[in-house]
């Protein structure tokens, strides 16, 4: 589904990613862990297509296509979803308008008709209840005045409506208390299926208590220095990131 080969990325001429190799198959859940500044967020932003990141070498294949040649919106429409670490507030544009516009953009991309307004409202109301959000959220400006936890739940709501194939969660657990974390994790787990993959970028292990990954990768100094199963996350939790002390550790 996703195949990253020898990916090198620079930001303002500074090398951040220095040769990432990662394969994600359909239905898999991967966790990318690592200390601050290791390049975790860069990886998720490059996948979504954020401007300002220069790919200096390597390739990314997405469903057999060259991802790096695709526009941001086409990546989204073809099923890549980035849940932002800091979701953006857009006053004056309602949540429900954005949800509908995004869903219809994806549907048009797949050659489907725009969704029926009543069907859409029904689906949205069901999903919003499962995320323990109030219905009034739909009619408020996108993320406007939302608390940190509400913003993260709103990201999961968008994800639940858009039903992407690859969900990238960028530090989704940051700033969440334990109750909000559980709700978010339940929302994510409800979306797990054999054709949907997840890439969870996180600093801490605690999110992985609730969303069990198939694979854990440790990213440091722009490279994946270790990969393993869920037990690797526990090991990191016990040891911290202190053992990663030089750019060449484990390489």
């Amino acid at each position, binding site marked *: 589904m996703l195949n990253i080969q020898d990916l090198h990325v620079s930001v303002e001429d500074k090398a951040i990613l220095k040769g990432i190799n990662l394969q994600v198959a359909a239905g898999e859940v991967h966790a990318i862990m690592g200390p601050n500044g290791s390049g975790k967020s860069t990886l998720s932003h490059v996948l*979504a*297509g954020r401007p300002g990141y220069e790919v200096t070498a390597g390739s990314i294949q997405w469903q057999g296509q060259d991802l790096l040649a695709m526009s941001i919106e086409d990546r*989204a*429409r073809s099923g890549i*979803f980035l849940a932002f670490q800091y979701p953006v507030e*857009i006053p*004056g544009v*309602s949540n429900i308008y954005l949800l509908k516009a*995004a869903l219809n*953009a994806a549907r048009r991309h797949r050659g489907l008709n725009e969704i029926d307004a009543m069907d859409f409202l029904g689906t949205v109301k069901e999903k919003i209840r499962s995320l323990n959000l109030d219905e009034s959220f739909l009619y408020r400006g996108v993320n406007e005045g939302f608390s940190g936890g509400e913003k993260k739940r709103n990201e999961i709501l968008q994800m639940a409506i858009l039903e992407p194939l690859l969900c990238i969660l960028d530090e989704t657990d940051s700033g969440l208390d334990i109750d909000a974390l559980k709700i978010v994790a339940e929302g994510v787990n409800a979306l797990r299926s054999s054709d949907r993959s997840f890439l969870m970028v996180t600093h801490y292990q605690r999110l992985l208590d609730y969303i069990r990954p198939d694979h854990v990768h440790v990213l440091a100094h722009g490279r994946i220095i270790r990969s393993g199963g869920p037990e690797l996350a526990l090991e990191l939790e016990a040891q911290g990131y202190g053992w990663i002390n030089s750019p060449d550790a484990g390489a």
Partner: protein
Amino acid sequence: MNRLVTLARETVQQGALPGQSRADLDGLRQSALATLEAHGFPDSRSEAFRYSRSKRLENMAFADAPGAVVEGATAMEAYLSPIRIPGAWSMVFVDGHYHAACSTPAVGDGLLCQNMTGFLEDKRNDYLPFPMEADDHGWMQANQACFSDGVVIMAEAGCRLEQPLQIIHVSTRAAAPVYVRNHIHMGADSHIDILESWLDISSSATLVNAVTDIQLDDHASLNIVRLDEDDRILANRLAHQRIHAGTHSTYRQHTFHLGGSLLRQETHIQLQQHASCSTEGLFMTRDRQESGHQLLIEHKAPDASSQVRYHGLADQASRGIFQGRILVGSHADRTVADMQSKNLLLSDQAEIDAMPQLEIHADDVRCAHGVSIGQLDETAIFYLESRGIARPEAVRLLMAGFANSMTDPIVHHGLRTHVRARLAVHLQFAPESFGLKP
């Protein structure tokens, strides 16, 4: 002598203006004319007009071309119906003259709602609602000398109007400048919601100058929304509001400048103890349009509050001007004042001049102000793109949201819904598209 002053003298000398048969009112008109002739119109040496291109209006040509000739009420209604609020009271003025057949003046216990000409011709009224102040500039003197009509509203104590009143001004021809004079007196504990809609269907440049005097007695409240409906570049409109807000009164003003060649809104509010006011506005300019907002709020007594919030979007070679000044008098302790101006420059040629000013002579106050002028937020654009929305649409959506967020604070549900729908049309969105809870 410039053309506008000459026209003003001719108009007053003809002696056919409303109420001119009364010596007292004619005296006011003559005296205003004399001041105008002596001092002329303000120019860029005056701080309030420093950034304005209003000087060019003084010699504008008024075509004799008939413009859109609208015969009869039915033909006029075709223009009015898209901008009418269903169920609202209405007062319609065409080129500065009251159009009774298209109007349904508000009716209520203790309410007088009448056009100015009718009010002045009524022999029972000896009241002359035309206070002038020493620092009134030339445009206000011209208005005093030449006003042809307007609205008079007098609400007695306790009079509360359920339905809003819509005042519609239509410019159909550009034969002469139009001077409108309104007077609103809100008795104690009275309440009215007003929407002023301005529409231009003429074929050449028009000029409208409106002055509104507002008195709010104790605990009265008044909400006024002004909506410049048309996006044509023929309309030049200068408006001046003078508000005396009595103790515990509430005044809210929302101004939406969506088009026009030169639009200017001057607002002067004087707040007594525990009075509160909010003045909010939106301008969206393009081509060589100019939209100016000039504000003076005086806290004359303790415990009053004022809130000022303006959003501006300037595209192409247009210009937006915000001059806000809050003056807190030496006895006005416990004043709360906040003034914010947020602006987006959408082109290299556009210009925005934003000057917030706080002048505080009291010790115990909470005052804040802020101004920002910038471009659209690239992070927000990326956020929308990452949801599958292409950049041009994302940009359009952000601009619409920025504009639309100024409708949120409109208290009256029907007015808010109407303004949102009109704004959506103007922004070429489907009317329901913002989806914000009405």
